[in-house]
């Protein structure tokens, strides 16, 4: 094909004229390829599509869902406020839980047997108590400790207050969720820390980097790679888990939904309201997790894979380019898939 390798201007070569010698009849490269036919796979796909269509049809047409009621409530002030409470509970318990959890994790990893034992015991106890039981305990804190104060351990107390006045219901819920979360977070963080190559700590020690800085700058960022997927699970679990604080009559999403359907009797559409919000919130968390994980993967891959957003943009760009090409007369064809040259 000497004619096309010449420096012909684009469009000069005409398609279709390929003056090649007829191939030998026994050359497999010249034969037509018949793709394999997967009949069973096609039948299964069809069956699943019918089932899904049936389900969606039911969702849309079964009057019990009462989509009108759903629409009335899903963005109502009461519900939005309840969502806000749910978010607050999740945020406080996540931040405080992981802070306390990190401290506990390093206590367990410390060389002091006392710290190790205390941390181990904490984790053992708080993983053993169901969250709902613990929450009710904290709800009844004032029965347990009427007053809270500062003083010398086992000695005189200098300052104290009524425990109900400092720790309201919301406070009790946050404490309960935090203490529960910390036990799990401790194990997640510890798992991440021990997954970091020992040579990293040795290198940091050999360079004389101060101990706290070693943890903050060398160990934790690398541990994050192992921590994040499990932590993402935990935070999503916690978001949904906040629904159990309805036992303390806190106006979070699930409690509020129950109050409304207790009043109106519209159980199903209001459960749908709660479902929709939980799905939206966990989806947002999953997206956030993706980007945080990506950030902590710096240096782990030679070339980080593009984000879905970047991939979509690149896809649109190639489509546009293809369209532009189609409008031009004729161009020597260069076949790369839509993502073929994306690196």
């Amino acid at each position: 094909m000497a004619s096309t390798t010449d420096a012909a201007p684009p469009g000069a070569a005409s398609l279709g004229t390929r003056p090649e010698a007829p191939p030998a009849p026994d050359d497999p490269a010249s034969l037509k390829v018949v793709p394999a036919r997967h009949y069973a796979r096609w039948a299964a796909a069809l069956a699943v599509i019918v089932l899904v269509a049936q389900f969606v049809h039911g969702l849309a047409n079964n009057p019990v869902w009462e989509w009108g009621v759903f629409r009335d409530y899903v963005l109502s002030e009461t519900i939005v406020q309840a969502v806000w409470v749910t978010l607050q509970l999740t945020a406080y318990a996540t931040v405080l839980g992981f802070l306390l959890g990190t401290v506990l994790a390093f206590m367990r990893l410390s060389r002091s047997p006392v710290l190790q034992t205390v941390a181990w015991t904490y984790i053992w106890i708080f993983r053993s108590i169901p969250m709902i039981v613990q929450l009710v305990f904290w709800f009844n804190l004032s029965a347990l400790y009427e007053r809270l104060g500062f003083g010398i351990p086992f000695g005189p107390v200098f300052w104290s207050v009524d425990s109900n006045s400092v720790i309201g219901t919301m406070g009790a819920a946050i404490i309960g969720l935090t203490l529960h979360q910390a036990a799990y977070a401790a194990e997640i963080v510890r798992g991440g820390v021990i997954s970091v190559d020992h040579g990293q700590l040795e290198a940091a020690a050999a360079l004389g980097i101060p101990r706290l800085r070693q943890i903050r700058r060398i160990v934790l960022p690398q541990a994050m790679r192992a921590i994040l997927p499990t932590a993402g699970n935990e935070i999503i679990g916690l978001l949904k888990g906040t629904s159990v604080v309805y036992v303390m009559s806190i106006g979070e999403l699930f409690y509020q939904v129950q109050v409304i359907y207790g009043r109106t009797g519209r159980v199903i559409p209001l459960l749908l309201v709660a479902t929709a919000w939980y799905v939206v919130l966990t989806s947002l968390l999953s997206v956030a997790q993706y980007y945080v994980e990506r950030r902590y993967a710096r240096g782990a891959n030679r070339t980080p894979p593009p984000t879905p957003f970047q991939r979509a943009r690149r896809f649109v760009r190639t489509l546009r380019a293809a369209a532009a090409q189609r409008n031009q007369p004729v161009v020597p064809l260069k076949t790369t898939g839509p993502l073929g040259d994306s690196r």
Partner: protein
Amino acid sequence: MSQVMVDVHGVHKSFGPLEVLRGVDLRVRAGEVTVILGPSGSGKSTLLRTINHLEKVNRGWISIDGELIGYRRAGGKLHELKEKDVLKQRTHIGFVFQNFNLFPHLTVLENLIEAPVSALRRPRKEAEETARRLLDRVGLTDKADAYPRQLSGGQQQRVAIARALALEPKVLLFDEPTSALDPELVGEVLDVIKDLAGTGTTMIVVTHEIGFAREVADTVVFMDGGVVVEQGPPAAVLDDPHHERTRAFLSKVL
């Protein structure tokens, strides 16, 4: 070339029942290159790791530039130093690992400035200037913003050497710096070390590269079974060894 920089005195070290070092004595003068040879399990790496106190010794002592490592002498007793003070001592002792141990989540430049900024409290800008100069010296000027995993093994080890140099240490310790490298990458790392030797850096190099020892070392030390079997100028130890064990080892590796 007279002052003793590293003084290892009667060092013993055991891991449980296994006695790895059984009374090692070693003196390295300032500006000299000492190469430690020996079969695996002879205690070479452990000795190197005791010098910067990555391993605590069971008996004996080590001093660098007249300062005891890991201990403080007061009132006829040796007081064990706190980790903070040991870390400070280590900033005078550069250590290059067999597996590089670069920080993979930091860029090459960040790897180089981490210790000067955090341990020596150097201003960031000054540390960066030093770092770039060092990268220039190891031939990696254009890799400052790369991540370690984007580099070849030889390039990573050269970064690791630059990282150790960034603290301007009194002595540089190399623990088999070319053992994890593909054969064709060994040369570029040895060239950097040779270059350093030419500038009068005090170095102790544990290696299996006999040719390198012959060319660069002022003193070759042969270790076996946790003791120094013999030491001397390369010509003496490598070409005319006195001990049967040295001869046996050399006949296997040459």
